[in-house]
């Protein structure tokens, strides 16, 4: 390290960054490509202020679910029940609002609490009884769909109070004519915050004597990000401004990104997903971690349930059907590993946007649902195949993942030692 020059160190760091982030960048590039493609195919309809606003609103609940799903998948689990939980929490909220006459301000926290309880229920079975999450949440999918039908008596509840509807169809207050000023100001504030965070991180790294990109490079990348934020808010400002649900999404994305990247809690989630045994032997309470990840998923499902119910202005028995698959697809397109331990919140958001833009763009050009499903399925498959191909190349031809169970007689290499380890790990029973 010491004898190498600063520039070679930098290029090496850059190469390492590219290697580690090729998947993330790849997906950003794919997203941009899809946007450009549909912008051309729709003759400019895709990026009109109205349609961009619609895109956010249409995909808001999937984005919320995708964030929670990403955490679940990083932990090495899956949650198939989120669609049913969306329906159930939506139904219960609607009953509380209409039959019980509770105010929206009381219903929202109650619904989130209900989501937490549902998550705790599933987390208990997964983490402490150690029933595979696939089974627990498959059961949950049936249980909460059935519960939804029971609560609604097979019928829809509509309409819902205005206060709830504003959650998904409301906009930030502001004047009606011309550009929406508060939105522009928020955009500028956001851009400034991004620049401040980036420069502070850079100066901190400098303080530790770590290699950092040159000031020019940081300025250039910051300029790109700032331009994107400003352009986005400008487009929104030309319509009604930033939707309420957009604010919610920004807060969630920023909050969960921070949690997963910068806190010890997030690091433990990655560790448990990366290797439960290694995490346990490092003093991490692996069961508790998995439990809370499911509680979190329950809360976010309830939030998505509120947003979706508000958007529909009705609670219906069939609400949320297939949402779990959209959320799971978003997480995998966004770079999650099916084996756990890998993935980012931003990745899930990009994955959800890829699916959202595909949906929206294909609808705009009049493709039927049949073709839409077909194409979305292929996109999911190709994205994950690309990921596996990349990983295999990165580990220079070694298998992506060693077989979980060591087969007999397979272990002896190198030193030619006799047999495999003599002792089972914590979760592995003795030779039997």
């Amino acid at each position, binding site marked *: *390290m010491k004898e190498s020059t600063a520039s070679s160190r930098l290029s*090496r*760091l850059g190469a*390492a*960054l590219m290697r*580690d982030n090729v998947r993330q960048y790849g997906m950003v590039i794919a997203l941009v490509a899809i946007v450009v493609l549909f912008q051309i195919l729709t003759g400019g309809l895709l990026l009109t202020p109205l349609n961009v606003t619609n895109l956010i609103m249409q995909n808001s609940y999937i984005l919320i679910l995708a964030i929670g799903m990403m955490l679940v998948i990083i932990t090495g689990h899956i949650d198939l029940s989120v669609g049913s939980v969306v329906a159930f929490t939506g139904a219960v909220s609607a009953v509380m609002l209409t039959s019980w006459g509770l105010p929206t301000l009381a219903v929202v926290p109650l619904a989130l609490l209900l989501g937490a309880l549902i998550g705790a229920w599933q987390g208990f079975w997964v983490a402490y009884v150690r029933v595979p999450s696939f089974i627990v949440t498959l059961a949950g999918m049936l249980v909460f769909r059935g519960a939804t039908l029971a609560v609604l008596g097979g019928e829809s509840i509509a309409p819902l109070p205005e206060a709830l509807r504003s959650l998904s169809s409301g906009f930030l207050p502001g004047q009606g004519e011309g550009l929406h000023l508060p939105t522009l100001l928020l955009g500028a504030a956001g851009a400034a915050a991004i620049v401040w965070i980036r420069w502070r991180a850079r100066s*901190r*790294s400098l*303080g*530790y*004597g*770590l290699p950092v990109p040159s000031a020019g490079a940081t300025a250039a990348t910051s300029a790109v990000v700032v331009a994107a934020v400003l352009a986005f808010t400008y487009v929104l400002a030309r319509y009604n401004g930033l939707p309420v649900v957009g604010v919610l999404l920004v807060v969630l994305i920023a909050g969960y990104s921070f949690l997963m990247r*910068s*806190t*010890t*809690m997030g*690091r*433990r989630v*990655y*560790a448990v997903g*990366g*290797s439960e*045994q*290694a*995490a*346990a*032997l*490092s*003093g*991490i*309470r692996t069961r508790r971690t998995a439990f809370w990840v499911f509680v979190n998923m329950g809360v976010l499902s309830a939030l998505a349930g509120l947003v979706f119910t508000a958007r529909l202005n009705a609670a219906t028995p069939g609400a949320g059907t297939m949402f779990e698959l959209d959320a799971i697809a978003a997480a995998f397109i966004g770079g999650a*590993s099916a084996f756990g*331990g*890998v993935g980012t919140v931003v990745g899930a958001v990009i994955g959800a946007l890829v699916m959202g833009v595909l949906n929206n763009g294909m609808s705009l050009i009049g493709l039927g649902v049949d073709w839409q499903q077909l194409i979305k399925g292929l996109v999911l498959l190709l994205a994950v195949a690309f990921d596996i191909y990349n990983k295999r190349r*990165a*580990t*220079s031809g*070694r298998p992506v993942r*060693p077989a979980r169970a060591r087969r*007999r*007689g397979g272990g*002896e*290499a*190198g*030193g*030619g*030692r*006799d*047999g*495999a*380890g*003599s*002792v*089972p*790990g*914590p979760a592995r*029973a*003795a*030779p*039997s």
Partner: protein
Amino acid sequence: MTERERRPASPGGPLLLMRGIQKEFPGVRALDGVSLSVGHGRIHALMGENGAGKSTLMKVLSGVHPAGSYTGEILVDGRPCAFSGVADSERAGIAIIHQELALIPQLSVSENIFLGHERSRFGIVDWGSTHARARELLRRVGLDENPATPVSALSVGARQLVEIAKALAKRVRLLILDEPTSALNEAESARLLELLLDLREQGVTCILISHKLGEVMRVCDEVTILRDGRTIETLEVERDADGTPSVDEDRVIRGMVGRALDQRHPGRSGEIGPVRFEVRDWTVDHPTQLGRRVVDGASLTVRAGEVVGMAGLMGAGRTEFAMSLFGRSYGRHVRGSVLKDGRELDTGDVAAAVRGGIAYVPEDRKTLGLLLDGDIRHNTTMAALGRVSRHGVLDPGLEAVEAARMSERMRVRSHGTTQIVRTLSGGNQQKVVLGKWMFTEPDLLILDEPTRGIDVGAKYEIYLIVRRLAAAGACVLLISSELPEILGMCDRIYTMCEGRITGEVPRAEADQETLMRLMTRTGGHP
């Protein structure tokens, strides 16, 4: 159906002759001109230290390492053989039973016995004949079980017998048993050895690999000793009227270890202080087999600045001891006490053990020690996140600096701390695990086979790190199967056998033969 339907081509010659077998793995010559001759109807013991090449030799013989991947010749009944797979060697009447049993627990005993060569006509299983034949085979191995019982309901000892029945079903002539008694209790072991003698009467030849010298000498007719991938000698064993073998155990031990200690260990420095850690009456039961004690009343002390060795053969209970000590990560009914500086230490879970200053570098670093898809930074800090965070918020700059510093101290060769550990070599991965635990600033570092599968250079560096840690006053408990490593590194050595501590030897009085004798001192054979 007779067991001797194939007549030997050269009557009177050995059943099996292996000559000049050489087998190389990348960078290592595991077998270097090994010869082995096994006579008809005899029990032939194959002895050697861990890593001597016994298992590799048996894999060559059974076709796991196919013809072409080694040089040398194999003759069965004087006929040259070139097995391209296990199926080939089975056709020649050779069956191998591994330490890890290869039965499918959910299937019944008879299904397991005939797995892969079901008794069937046109693909339809003939259950009547299957069960009848299975019952007959079970009788031969002395197992009184219904053949319809699922294997999961059987004890480990019974499973071993089912494995042998399975081999007999294939009309085996040469049965290879690799550490058959390592998972068995004494009664089960005795029963298995009786069975081997019975089978010998029925004309089945047997190659027995075992670390338990006492039981080997009780049953074998011939012993071949391997060391460092070479055949050292083959001895005939005869017994006088009261069963005393003509070859004594010391002779075999000398053959197994007989090499000079190489200068591959750094010299020690620093003073040994007072006792810091003490373990009293540590007893652990097997996690699934009720009542089987894996560690039985083990007590030991470690002084400040001392490297204490724990020598023992595979299955002696050393790893179980260490892992149960480390926050009860293994076993059930863990009892006994740990004292640090004379005060009782809470080791109820891993977090408590880490807080108490204990660190455990596991034997199986890939699954128990590392996040393979994580980078060096994350792996380095994962056991001590508190050191790089404030109020639960990580300081990425501090983490990068600390990880880089630790990496340098451990001499990890990488292109930076953001490298994914899966892409590192085995030696460098081990250094990352070591760094992860050094980062917790432990008072007691337990190293479990720290140099397994690691090249010589990395080994020396790991020894240096251990030395430096001890010189700084920390306690080290070094578990190893390699006696040269134990003798080269340790100030004091405990030996373990069958879950019990069988000896405590200061470095000055220790040599390989003494240790080997203590390590093989099973309950009935002091």
